[in-house]
């Protein structure tokens, strides 16, 4: 059954766009069912989602890229055509995006200004990359500093989606010693609803899922304390990892190519940060559900957590100290020994002094006592 055959088509809506592209209602409902499941919504919500999305106007989206590596864009564009993720691009009007838009220079900036004007208070602002506060010259677009562009564009936004760990938490640019003075979107914008979709990069379907939620409900999904949607970031990778039973059995790979690694045993000892990383990698996976880092033999590096870059080596187990070394302990033992010698010397001196002043009781003393 095609949308064009039965569903009511309202001009200028997403439904019209889908109909023009020949997307069937069955396909669209299947897509909405998948999204509903990913967002942890009841199955019955799929129909409501389909209804809401198809009647919605194409959402104007402005995508700003600051101090970033374009990995987030790479991720969202590598959703597999013609998979359902691509439909999201039919649901939104991507009015500004450096990498994806055809326009450049003044024309590109004009597109942004026009979108801001036409959709004032309604457009969705997506940001990837951190914002340098150290010097505006560290990162500019068309001569406009990242900070100015963010503040200007955020003013008329209905909501902001901070895509990637750099935009959400500062990410790699903010890693010690943070040479550019990088901060996250949330550190600057305080008066708009912000949803963080961290990851380096985030999973494509997580980004599209959040957009679909916004289109369906006109608001942001339930979030955790770090502003991440709970439906995707509600559980740790460790708790949903297919290798978890090996952790419980105490079976661990000792190196990346030993027999245990080939058997798929737990990668905890090789530095996996899955136990403290909240993300959906173990469930939604990557590359059209093909795999995720742990499945391909490498431990999780915890990229969706704030300051993961400064949280110790990627290849040291979580229970290992970040900076303590055996030589540090040896130094402490030497200090303890020196202090012990000093105290022993003091104790013996005290003992010797007491002995020196000690007067033995004599017979005369006893005699006097008797008197």
């Amino acid at each position, binding site marked *: 059954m095609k949308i064009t055959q039965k569903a009511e088509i309202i001009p200028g809506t997403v439904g019209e766009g889908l109909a023009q592209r020949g997307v069937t209602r069955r396909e669209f409902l299947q897509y909405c069912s998948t999204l509903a499941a990913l967002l942890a919504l009841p199955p019955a919500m799929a129909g409501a989602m389909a209804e809401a999305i198809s009647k919605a106007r194409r959402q104007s989206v402005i995508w700003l890229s600051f101090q970033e590596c374009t990995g987030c864009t790479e991720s969202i564009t590598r959703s597999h055509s013609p998979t359902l993720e691509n439909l999201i691009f039919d649901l939104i009007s991507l009015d500004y995006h450096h990498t994806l838009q055809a326009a450049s220079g003044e024309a590109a900036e004009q597109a942004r200004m026009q979108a801001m004007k036409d959709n004032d208070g309604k457009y969705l602002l997506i940001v990837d990359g951190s914002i340098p506060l150290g010097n505006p010259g560290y990162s500019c677009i068309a001569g406009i500093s990242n900070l100015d562009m963010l503040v200007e564009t955020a003013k008329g936004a209905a909501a902001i989606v901070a895509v990637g760990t750099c935009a959400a*938490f500062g990410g790699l640019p903010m890693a010690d010693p943070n040479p550019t003075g990088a901060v996250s979107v949330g550190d600057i914008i305080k008066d708009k609803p912000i949803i963080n979709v961290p990851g380096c990069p985030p999973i494509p379907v997580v980004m599209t899922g959040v957009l679909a939620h916004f289109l369906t409900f006109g608001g942001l999904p339930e979030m955790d304390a*770090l502003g991440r949607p709970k439906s995707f970031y509600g559980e*740790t990778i460790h*708790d949903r990892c297919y290798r978890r039973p090996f*952790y*419980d*059995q*105490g079976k*661990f790979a000792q190196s990346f190519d030993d027999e245990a690694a080939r058997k798929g045993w737990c990668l*905890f*000892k090789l530095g996996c940060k899955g*136990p*403290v990383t909240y993300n959906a990698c173990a469930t939604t996976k990557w590359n059209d559900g093909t795999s995720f880092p742990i499945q391909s033999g490498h431990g999780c590096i*915890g990229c969706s*957590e*704030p*300051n*993961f870059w*400064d*949280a*110790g080596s990627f290849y*040291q*187990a*979580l*229970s*290992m*100290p*970040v*900076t*303590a070394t*055996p030589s*540090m*302990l040896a130094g*402490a*033992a030497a*200090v*303890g*020994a020196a*202090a*012990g*010698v000093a*105290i*022993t010397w003091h*104790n*013996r001196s005290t003992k010797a002094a007491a002995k020196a002043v000690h007067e033995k009781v004599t017979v005369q003393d006893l005699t006097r006592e008797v008197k």
Partner: protein
Amino acid sequence: MTHLDLLTFARGSALNWALIIFVIGIVLRLFEIFGLSRKADLATPRTHSPGSGWRTMLARSIPPPGMLKRDPVTYIGGYVFHLGLLFAIFFFAPHIEFFRSMTGLHWPNLPTALVDASVVAAMVALGMLLAHRLNNPVKRMLSGFGDYLAWTVTLLPLLTGYMAYHHLLFEYTLMLSLHLFSVELLLVVLPFSKLFHTFSVFISRWYNGDIFGRKGVAS
């Protein structure tokens, strides 16, 4: 400060300082104890008792005849607690990784479920021992602040470790940080409290066994 930042601090600077204080404290106190020294005993030993000190180290780990029946809570609780703690500290895979990183030594680990059970047993034993301490008039009279402090700082790492593993009360990262802080508290308190018996117990048993052997008292 996010929970991961807190964990990084717990695994970083906080752990460094706790370890430094712990190692300095242990070495210092051992020097202090051995440095006290005794005058050489010039008297002829009353009985010929070679190995008396070594025997006592073992003998005092076994209840004297009749004592197990007379005070089962103290003995059984003591055994269960100490063995549970031993398994939890030395046979949980993440803990072995810690020891390996600090000493280069490592050994096989137990399945996590067994370690979990040993932690539960140790905590139950600690609870029973505390109840016994409070209910027994003699024990209560003998107990002071140091005893309750030792009990608390020993329980906390077990409790927080158990809660972190089972995702109780707080989310895992925060609970794991609290677990590390509780371990660091234990490391700092241990050298300067009754918990120093971890290092001195066998030294003092050997000394007592040896000196009593010389004086003709059976070990």
